[in-house]
């Protein structure tokens, strides 16, 4: 059976879900700013912003996560709490780019040798309901990275906004487990037609022109290129692109202590911060923005592909939209492809 959910039943459906699952969805914090958060009431869900600032990776890899708590005595410290997941989870409203990004992070965190249990436990228990992008932005270049506004890979349930209802495609076992949900109706042929039309329209809108074909090999030849001397100049070295990027996964581990009680916490970190690679001796293998910008771009388009066979970028465009100085990763790739740096000083318009 092909399903749909009327928008007037949406809140009821969410209320149903909330009885048995922990629900994560985009929430608007203020106009123009959305993040993925745990939902207590259906009214909090806001699907209007195509790219929420903080991506779906927050659900599996929170910015700030307590690994364990401990107490200290004169002779030793001892761990007093362990991490556990209470209920099954649903993430609703992630876009195909964010869903693809989760699988990119998964390849690092869930390995043959070691598995990051904090990530894995959450991932195992989560059903992913992806929302298709009817109206991609001009900054979306998911089609260049192997994705697309209606890409279904990685989704358990695929949701398409038809205007007054949502078309629901139950794709996996986890997704099909929802087929008995009370408010699901049968989608008629008009709904299916409309979904197809929307998919067709959207597929033309995302940017396919970013030259990512063979970027790994091109960058192999450019490790010491003067290209890096110029491209890093306007970067101010903040963490916006890395924190908002759905595939960036670097983290720092610190102990926070008050009196004799404490916790070991992991927090997101950014390879663009100067102290990221600073060693206690004072030596810093990446002393200037040149090395750090090189590290970020090479990691995404050369190092990660060497290890896992695809680029670590999903074309969501967040780094372009939110960078304070408009560093544009698309232009960086174009210039790397052409191996030139003149013309990077703005464009006469």
């Amino acid at each position, binding site marked *: 059976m092909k399903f749909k959910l009327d928008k007037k039943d949406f809140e009821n459906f969410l209320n149903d879900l909330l009885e048995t699952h922990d629900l994560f969805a985009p929430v608007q914090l203020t106009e123009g700013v959305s993040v993925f958060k745990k939902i207590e009431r259906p009214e909090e869900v806001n699907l209007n912003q195509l790219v929420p600032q903080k991506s779906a990776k927050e659900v599996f890899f929170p910015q700030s996560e307590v690994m364990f708590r*401990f107490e200290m005595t004169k002779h030793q*410290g001892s761990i007093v709490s362990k991490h556990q997941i209470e209920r099954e989870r649903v993430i609703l409203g992630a876009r195909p780019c964010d869903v693809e990004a989760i699988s990119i992070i998964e390849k690092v965190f869930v390995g043959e040798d070691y598995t*990051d249990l904090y990530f894995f436990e959450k991932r195992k228990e989560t059903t992913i309901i992806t929302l298709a992008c009817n109206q991609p932005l001009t900054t979306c270049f998911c089609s260049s990275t192997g994705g697309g506004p209606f890409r279904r890979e990685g989704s358990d349930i695929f949701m398409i906004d038809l205007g007054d209802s949502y078309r629901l495609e139950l794709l996996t076992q986890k997704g099909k487990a929802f087929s008995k949900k009370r408010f699901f109706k049968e989608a008629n042929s008009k709904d299916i037609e409309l979904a197809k039309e929307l998919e067709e329209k959207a597929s033309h809108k995302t940017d396919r022109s970013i030259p990512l074909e063979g970027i790994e090999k091109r960058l192999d030849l450019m490790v010491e290129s003067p290209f890096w001397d110029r491209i890093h100049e306007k970067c101010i070295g903040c963490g916006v692109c890395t924190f908002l990027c759905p595939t960036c996964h670097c*983290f720092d581990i610190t*102990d926070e202590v008050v009196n004799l009680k404490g916790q*070991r916490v992991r927090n997101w*970190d950014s390879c663009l911060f100067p102290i990221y690679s600073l060693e*206690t001796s004072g030596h810093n293998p990446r002393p200037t923005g040149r090395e750090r910008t090189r590290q970020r771009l*090479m990691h995404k388009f050369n190092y990660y592909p060497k290890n896992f066979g695809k680029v670590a970028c999903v074309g969501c465009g967040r780094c372009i939209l939110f960078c304070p100085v408009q560093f544009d990763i698309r232009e960086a790739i174009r210039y790397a492809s052409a191996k030139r740096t003149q013309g990077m000083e703005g464009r006469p318009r």
Partner: protein
Amino acid sequence: MIVKKARIETSDRMLRTLELTFRNPEDEEKFRYIPGQFCELSILGKGEAPFGIASSPTEKGSLKFTINKAGVVTTAIHHLEEGYEIGIRGPLGNGYPIDLFEGKNLLIIGGGFAFTTLRSLIAYFLHPENRPRIKGITVIYGARMPGLLLYKEELLEWEKRDDLRLVMTVDWGDKDWKGKVGLVPNVLEEVAPSAEETYAVICGPPIMIKFTFPKLMTLRFPNERIFTSLEKRMKCGIGKCGRCNIGHLYVCKDGPVFSYAQLEKLPKDY
């Protein structure tokens, strides 16, 4: 793990060797390691840091680490009392390529307090079970001053052995020092071991490596037969946090031991 014994190793009091025992003897059974691997030692309330294992797997009953006092965690380790329990994660890393050394000569060059994992390697091959697997062992170990040499009593024992050639040197001697005075690269040139059928392992401060490496080239050591143990800032130690990468390899997971042939192909990110 429990701190069984601790002692200051060097005259500037910056290096302290800890001997740690397992709280549960069964854990020791499961803890199988080879020279060159490292562990993350955890002091609850301060943090965690990676340290190369200085003891050899042939030395049962405890693990030895030599720690340089530099930051928050290492200062806390320097203040640990005997009997204190700390956390450990390991063994991590790839270790020295013991299998490759089979039937060959070994040239070991160490500088300063980078000698810790080299001690593990030497002690491993000096063990009667393992000594026959290797042909000749030559060790060149240098420090700035005699007081800064690690494991002094052991070095004196090793000097007396005839199944290994140990040359110690210092940059500046003192009135009691009877050994060589000279920089490691120059001593290497003097000793001039043959590169034939020989693997070189070199660990030391960047400045020493910078000047020693060309001498190895002059002695005709090919890049595939020169190994080093790198250091980089680490956090998780298992290739997840992204911090210690050199190119597409992680120092914690694919290293810390790398051959120069490998390093040639990677960006100079260390």
